[in-house]
């Protein structure tokens, strides 16, 4: 599996090198504006996470790698490992360059968001290939967003109608700025653990689907 991860990194090394130059430089100019820094982090980390996959697809090398003495399961696990490594590395750069300006909660939320995106996208890719997989991913993501918006609207409606009891004082304190800061490490741990659990389940699904797909 390490050989497959190494293969991904070597095959995409020029692309990664360009990102490794541009990303910190861009980030360094954005540290005064945390929202802008977050956008830059999100964009460049996504490029690092999914770039090697796009390069592989554009060069049509999938059949070549599948012809090597590796199991489909190993290919899937290596792809997830490369993606998670890239996300972690991208956020690490962000943390180092912005000197923690974005904060633990924002960084862990970004990790959560990107890992969930990868966990939704990769099964689509392993089942349908890149082009059709992207379409399926877009549909699934849109569906989830619509669902979340619907749930949000419903909650908001119920709260307006006082259907939800008053928020207890403990939660009010927790929701205050000081409370949030105190809870930040716990929130980060929960977000990361949840993201990794979802990624694990997603990897199992991908392995199952990829083992039945033609290369």
């Amino acid at each position, binding site marked *: 599996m390490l*050989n497959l991860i190494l293969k991904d990194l070597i095959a995409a090394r020029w692309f990664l090198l360009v990102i490794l130059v541009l990303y910190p430089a861009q980030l360094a100019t954005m540290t005064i504006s945390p929202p802008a820094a977050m956008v830059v982090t999100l964009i460049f980390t996504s490029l690092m996470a999914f770039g090697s996959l796009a390069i592989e697809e554009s060069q049509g090398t999938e059949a070549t790698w599948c012809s090597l003495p590796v199991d489909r399961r190993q290919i899937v696990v290596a792809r997830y490992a490369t993606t998670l490594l890239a996300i972690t590395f991208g956020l690490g750069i962000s943390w180092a360059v912005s000197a923690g300006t974005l904060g633990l909660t924002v960084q862990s939320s970004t990790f959560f968001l990107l890992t969930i995106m990868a966990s939704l996208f990769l099964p689509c890719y392993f089942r349908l290939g890149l082009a059709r997989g992207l379409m399926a991913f877009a549909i699934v993501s849109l569906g989830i967003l619509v669902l979340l918006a619907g749930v949000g609207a419903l909650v908001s409606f119920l709260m307006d109608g006082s259907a939800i009891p008053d928020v207890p004082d403990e939660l009010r304190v927790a929701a205050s700025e000081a409370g949030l800061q105190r809870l930040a490490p716990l929130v980060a741990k929960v977000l990361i653990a949840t993201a990794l659990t979802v990624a694990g389940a997603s990897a199992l699904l991908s392995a199952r689907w990829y083992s039945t797909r033609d290369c």
Partner: protein
Amino acid sequence: MQPILSVKGLTKRFEGFTLSNVSFEIPPGFVMGLVGPNGAGKTTTLKSVLGLLRRDAGEVLVSGLDPEWDGAAARTRIGFVHDEPRFPRYLTLRDISAIISRFYAGWNKARFLRLMDTFELPLRKRFGVLSRGMRMKFALVLALSHDAQLIVMDEPTTGLDPVFRRELLDVLQGLLEGERASILFSTHITADLDRIADYVTLLQDGRVVFSEAKDDILERWALVKGARELATDQPEHWFRGIQVGPHGFEAITDDLPGVRRHFGDAVIIERPTLEDIVLLTSSGRTNA
């Protein structure tokens, strides 16, 4: 002796095409040519041997291992050359070989360098700037550098100029002398088969027409030529393919005694080339 490759009843269904009940075997040290027109199922067969396609029925065993279920173990024994070799375009041949070599425990670096030298392939060149012929040669070098028991090549000579093609086949033949490796290669250039194949499997519309030793095929099959009016007499009974022209017919048969009995001296019987067999069996019955 256990065959290096055994394919039994291989069936793979696609929308609009079915590879049906394909069976053949390759003993160790022999070359099998898979021949047939475009769309006959050659690439599907080779991809199934590599375990890239999930078959619908049948069995494929490489040295007793199923590439679909024992993929890694089976593919360790296979060297592959795809019809269009694809490696990262921006990497040099040295980089690519460094990646590929890590996957094979039996990687023979000395042999790799010797073959690179033989084929005059520069290690520092990027894969993307190589010609098709050079890419094919590089893929072949990689396939031959890890002591594979079976080399699978999908149309390795298509698109190459005749000189280059001949050179490639000569080098391949030379490399295999004294080796235990077997070769399965597909082509629609029958001259390639004449040069290096020991066995030939002819595929047509996803089915095997024949799979035999090349010498037996040339011995058993015959090219029959005769007057046009003779071709109207139940040709499908005697011939596996016939082409009728304004001045007569040309047909192929695998029932020479039957043709001799039926037509006597009214027809001319010649020894066919593999090209005659492939062309005429592919044409079925045509009127020129």
